[in-house]
């Protein structure tokens, strides 16, 4: 089977401007920005609530989103996250990029990459909840409305990344 080369990625400036317009429209129409980790966290909580509702009720942190009659999934971000998956899939499909494969650095095997992705994801999931948002909700959305915490967060993300990038360079170079 022959496969066409995938469509090239957008120029970063074009991508940035379009992303900025999407973010602006989100603020203009709904009053809120974009987000991702919140939607994932609510999905996890919904499972947790289905398995152990009493446990969710007893935790102050968990019950804030899902205690009692509260439905963790009753939140715009849950829809937003489904939209992200949908939009990402359609765009990747149209660009010829939607296929099963693994992206990894040149010196990292597939299995290692999977373990690292899982570990990095776990660190990030914890960190995103701690910071009340991830790169989308906190850095991008909060940064565009000049929230102080979001700018502190953004600088910390780059600081944390660059601090470990050199020791871990074998992962990606």
């Amino acid at each position: 089977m022959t496969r066409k080369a995938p469509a090239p990625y957008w120029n970063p400036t074009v991508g940035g401007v379009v992303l900025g317009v999407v973010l602006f429209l989100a603020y203009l129409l709904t009053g809120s920005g974009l987000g991702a980790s919140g939607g994932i966290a609510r999905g996890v909580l919904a499972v947790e609530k289905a398995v152990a509702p009493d446990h969710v009720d007893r935790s102050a942190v968990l019950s804030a989103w899902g205690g009692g009659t509260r439905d963790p999934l009753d939140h715009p971000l849950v829809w937003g996250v489904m939209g992200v998956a949908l939009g990402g899939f359609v765009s990747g499909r149209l660009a010829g990029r939607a296929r099963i494969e693994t992206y990894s650095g040149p010196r990292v095997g597939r299995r290692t990459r999977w373990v690292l992705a899982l570990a990095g994801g776990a660190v990030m999931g914890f960190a995103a909840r701690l910071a009340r948002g991830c790169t989308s909700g906190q850095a991008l959305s909060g940064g565009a409305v000049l929230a102080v915490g979001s700018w502190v967060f953004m600088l910390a993300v780059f600081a944390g990344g660059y601090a470990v990038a050199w020791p871990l360079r074998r992962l990606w170079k």
Partner: protein
Amino acid sequence: MLPLALAPFGLSSPWLFLAIGAAFGAVLERSGFGDSRRLAAQFYFTETRVLRVMFTAIVTCLLLLTAASTLGVLDFRALAIPPTYLSSALLGGLLLGVGFVVGGYCPGTSIVSAATGKVDGMFFLGGVAVGVFAFGETADGFRTFWDRSGAMGVVTLPDVLRLPFGAVVAGVVLMALGMFALASVLERRIGRVPVAPRGGRAAARGPRALRAGALAALLVALVGLARPATGAGSAAARVELLAPTLDAELAAGTVRTDPLEVLGLLHHRIGGAPARFRLVVLDVRPEADFNRFHLLDAERTTLDALRGEAGRALAGPAYTTAVKVLVSNDGRDAVEAWRLLRAHGARHAYVLDGGVNLWLDVFRDGRTDARATDDGERLRHAFPSALGARHPFARPPLALLERLLATKARSSPCVVRPVTKAAKASGGCG
């Protein structure tokens, strides 16, 4: 300033959230954010896509918001600005940066990656689920730190830097451009990215001068003109800035409610039908008048208090879905109080038309055709003693309301809108 209704429009249709999410996902995919190698390249300066896309987006969105705000069509303060928790933002940010380099994605980009079939993206997404679960299970142990340490509430850079809004926006634009230039240099020096071929120097000079000129014009315009229509400043200043919008709302007749309708609220009825909602009656009259007579469960407050913390609290999350009715002797001060609440961003705020004077005219004296009059905020009615809410007409019986409604002795339009579930989403990922 244009007397337009203010954005944000507060739309909350699942389809809209889905559509916005889809646009977000598509842009991430097209920008190359579904590929962990392209994302991680940021940290080795072989490609600075992450920085460029992110800051271009922030600048674009910020400039659009600033333009809308300066034109007076958008209330900057009504946006869901994430509250600041310095310590957890700093610690979470550092950890998140580490996770970025180890895992190669962030939560949003991993969704795109997994959706396009990348197995590392799927593992990462699974990891995020594990991480948020771990946080949920342990966070009760350090909740005090999480909720309190460095908690500053909703603060923006212009607030803490004590600079005009436009100057901060100009600063952000300059900083982004500086970072892009620095990123280009580092791409060449550290990432060893070959220099893209460029046109001759002479050819570049014209556009470059033009670009510099345009940038200078933009910066001057930002510093000189830009202001958030209602972004910073005291409540009183915001009332002034919002005046055209507030006047339009008052003129549209969606603010002043007839005593009959407020009596319905006291009996937990909206538009004649029983409804479940929280009612907050705020009385802004002097203490002496309040002690003589007030509506049942009314809380006494003052215009000064509403200008400050009390007003901000009433616009806060604890009162988002509460129906707030403002009461004065003849309604004039209550309108002032209403303007303050609206300036703080509160919704579902109403004014008891004609105040306590009209209330007693209608219910106690049975003058069903009475209208609001300006009495200079003087309590027109006399009381033998200070009964407060023990006065029988602090909440006339439901039977009286039903009789007045049935006989159509007093017609009153329905102004109070039923309260729906919290329409406003919390900011971003929260």
